């Protein structure tokens, strides 16, 4: 979330009338220039809707770029580190992209509609970088962010509810698959994707369909305990599920002004997304060197003793600071006090025992805590239903 000093007047999403009515706490935040609820009624209950029934999150503010033309695949293949040719039609791929120095600019998802038609969903605004990337390619980039309204419908009963909405055979859709439907005479696209690590879908419609979609979802989902959830509940879910957040767990390289504050994919645990079999992609030459010489940092998941979230903590080893925490939360389903941290190499191999220096305040009284913690394999929350096809019924 950006700081208030950088804010301009906030926009509202196509779901705003419904979101506003549902936002009992009237607790609002600024997400990428849009008025978005931090919480609707209770962070933990919202979170538990995602894990036990169905939660609905308005993700309309996400940046969406339609990429089309004869060179669309080649263009994307030069842009991102993974091999886009391997993303089939009606499939979605998670991807990261770097600058020439091999430093991560952002992460996002690539939706493939046909041989020459893609949509890139990014956290950051990427108009400028995507435009420069067109040099030498026969490709058209359209920012369609405000042309598409989207809801994340996540949780064990989500498939059932969307099937009631008219998404036939949705349970047959594989993870990272896309299916096309019609909703009140307009197109509706469902992708089996999400940011919660649970069984879940993202539903994409024209803005004109937004309010009707919300109304019908909540009506049909009533018996399946559908609830809206806000940014805070999403934060809990994504930490538990092992997802990184730009501007929180790493700084988008384009926004960094200080030397050494950017990170390469290996330093974020995303080396598996870097495909050196591709002869060319942005950052390849620099990353090949990194592979040879090693990285400076490692991104780790920590299981922290106690129940005090290790927010912004220093991570120590033998009395020396070796890293800092980027995200931390007590995760209710995992029943673990989790933290993501960037630690200096060679620390942070799985099993490594470290100390988190936690400060917390109770009635103006600060307490310092040296909490032992252990590097564990990420993610800690991985329910079978996330990957099952057909999706388990409810």
């Amino acid at each position: 979330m950006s700081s208030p000093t950088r804010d301009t007047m906030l926009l509202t999403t196509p779901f705003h009338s419904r979101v506003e009515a549902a936002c009992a706490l009237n607790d609002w935040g600024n997400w990428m220039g849009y008025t978005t609820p931090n919480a609707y009624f209770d962070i933990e209950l919202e979170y538990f809707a995602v894990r036990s029934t169905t939660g609905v999150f308005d993700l309309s503010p996400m940046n969406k770029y339609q990429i089309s033309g004869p060179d669309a695949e080649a263009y994307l293949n030069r842009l991102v580190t993974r091999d886009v040719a391997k993303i089939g039609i009606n499939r979605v791929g998670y991807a990261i992209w770097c600058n020439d120095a091999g430093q991560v600019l952002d992460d996002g998802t690539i939706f493939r509609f046909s041989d020459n038609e893609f949509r890139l969903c990014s956290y950051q605004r990427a108009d400028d970088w995507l435009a420069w990337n067109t040099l030498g390619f026969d490709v058209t980039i359209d920012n369609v962010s405000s042309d598409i309204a989207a809801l994340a419908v996540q949780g064990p009963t989500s498939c059932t509810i969307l099937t009631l909405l008219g998404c036939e055979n949705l349970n047959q859709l594989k993870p990272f698959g896309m299916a096309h439907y019609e909703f009140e005479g307009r197109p509706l696209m469902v992708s089996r994707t999400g940011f919660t690590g649970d069984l879940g879908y993202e539903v994409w419609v024209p803005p004109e369909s937004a309010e009707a979609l919300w109304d019908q979802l909540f009506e049909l989902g009533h018996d399946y305990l559908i609830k809206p959830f806000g940014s805070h509940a999403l934060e809990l879910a994504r930490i538990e599920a092992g997802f990184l957040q730009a501007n929180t767990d790493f700084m988008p390289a384009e926004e960094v002004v200080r030397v050494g504050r950017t990170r390469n994919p290996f330093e974020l645990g995303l080396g598996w997304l870097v495909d050196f079999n591709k002869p060319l992609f942005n950052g390849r030459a620099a990353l090949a060197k990194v592979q040879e010489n090693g990285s400076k940092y490692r991104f780790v998941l920590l299981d922290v003793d106690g129940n005090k979230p290790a927010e912004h903590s220093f991570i120590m080893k033998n009395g020396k600071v070796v890293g800092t925490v980027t995200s931390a939360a007590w995760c209710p389903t995992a029943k673990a006090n989790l933290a993501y941290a960037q630690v200096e190499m060679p620390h942070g191999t799985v099993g490594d025992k470290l100390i988190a220096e936690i400060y917390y305040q109770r009635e103006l009284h600060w307490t310092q805590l040296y909490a032992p913690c252990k590097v564990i394999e990420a993610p800690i929350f991985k329910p079978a239903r996330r990957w099952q096809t057909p999706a388990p019924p409810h």
Partner: protein
Amino acid sequence: MTDYDAIVIGAGHNGLICASYLAKAKHKVLVIDSRPVPGGCASTREFAENYRVSDCAQWLSQLDKTIVSDLQLSDAGLVLSSPKSTISLQPDAAHVTFDGDTVTGTSIDTEDVTAYSSFRLQMRRFAKVLATLYNGRPPKLVEKNWTDRITLLKLGLGLKLLGKSHMQDLMRLALINIYDVMNEYFKNPALKSAIALDAVTGSNMGPRSPNTVFSYLHKVTGEFLSDSGTRQVMGGMGALGTALASSAEAAGVEIKLGCAVKAIKKTGHAVSGIELVDGTLLSSKIVVSSADPTTTFKSMLGYAQMEAGMAKRAELYRNRCGTAKLHIALKALPTFTGLNQAQLSQRLIITPPMDGMETALNPMKYNEISDQHLFDISIPSIDDPSLSPEGHHVLSALVHYVPFSPKMGWDEARQLLTDQLIDEISAYAPDLKSLAVASELVTPADFEKTHHVTGGSWHHGELSIDQVLMMRPFPGSTQYKTAVEGLYLCGAGAHPGGGLLGLPGRNAAKEIIKGGALV
């Protein structure tokens, strides 16, 4: 097994020099050029029947002396005239003559004479410092490399040895404009504008443009490293190309002329050779391009073949240039008011005072034809009768500021401007028009077409402060090695840049040999 160790694109002076040094180090080298003659911008051409001129560069003043001796260019047939003085022609015939560190003229007082020699001395001091950078690869500032550190140490030492006040003076002057510096040193307007002309030659800048002190120092540094004065090449500049080519061939270089390169080819992530227009593929361990960076990266390699940040930098590289050439065939030697015949063979310049230079620049910015131009004139047939029929002469003039694409279009503008330019010179040479039997205007657009220099930019890209030294042509592709593995630069688009210096070619070869890419 590749066809060659190195393929050098472009048989211009830098390409041939680079190839020669590589071949001397026992590498198998091919030089390829689309033009039928070697030399690139060092070329001689018949522009009217039996009249020949150096159709691009016309003076040799910066060619590094070690290159001349290493490549034994005298043995290869390079013959030069005696050094030329510069005469700045004045409307009232009170011409000003520059010869080495002295300036003479009826309008020049002793104060300006003294100021001129101290100015020259100061510029040479600075050139000596800059020469430490010109003689090798430009040092990168942030990477911890010993070669670069040593260069920086030498530079630091050079600065230190200047003494405090001279060092401060260099720091103060380096980034400002020549207009202010001239006003600081001199009183005489003709003196000021004559020096300012050297600061803007081959550029799109006026005396008040930032960087013009640097571009002047660039020229002086070349002259310092050449140490030969301003000379004319016998047989025209093309003879330099021929001499370089025969020296290269003697060193074992294979030269293919009249063969255009269609593309620089990659295998996997690295450059592996070239494709010719006829479809022939030639493989090599490395490709060294002496073509300008825009031609190399945009046309030959293609933006889709490099990382996006590099493509962006290549696209933003600036190539504007306002220099044209005027060639006139004369049936007899013209008369210039106030000049004797011996003086006619010198370097003659015509320029208004500095404010007038700025005024002359302005229309070019808006793609219009100026009322007034700046001229750098040579009548090479006086020293070199081989260029014209007996008793006849050729006049060759560098002309500033001419737009690349005038609004009215070259079809219409060409004859208009040619006539206007001849009129402008005729103000100083009344019989010029009556003696002219043929003429030719070579516009920046023509240079782009005939010599394959993007934007008609003689320097292969502007010598602005963001495109020189460790920034040339752009970060990530400095030190002759580009960000694309196997692709190197050895042309004027690489450090230390434009002019007939030969240093980009020589430095590139040294770096390539040292870098071990050919082992």
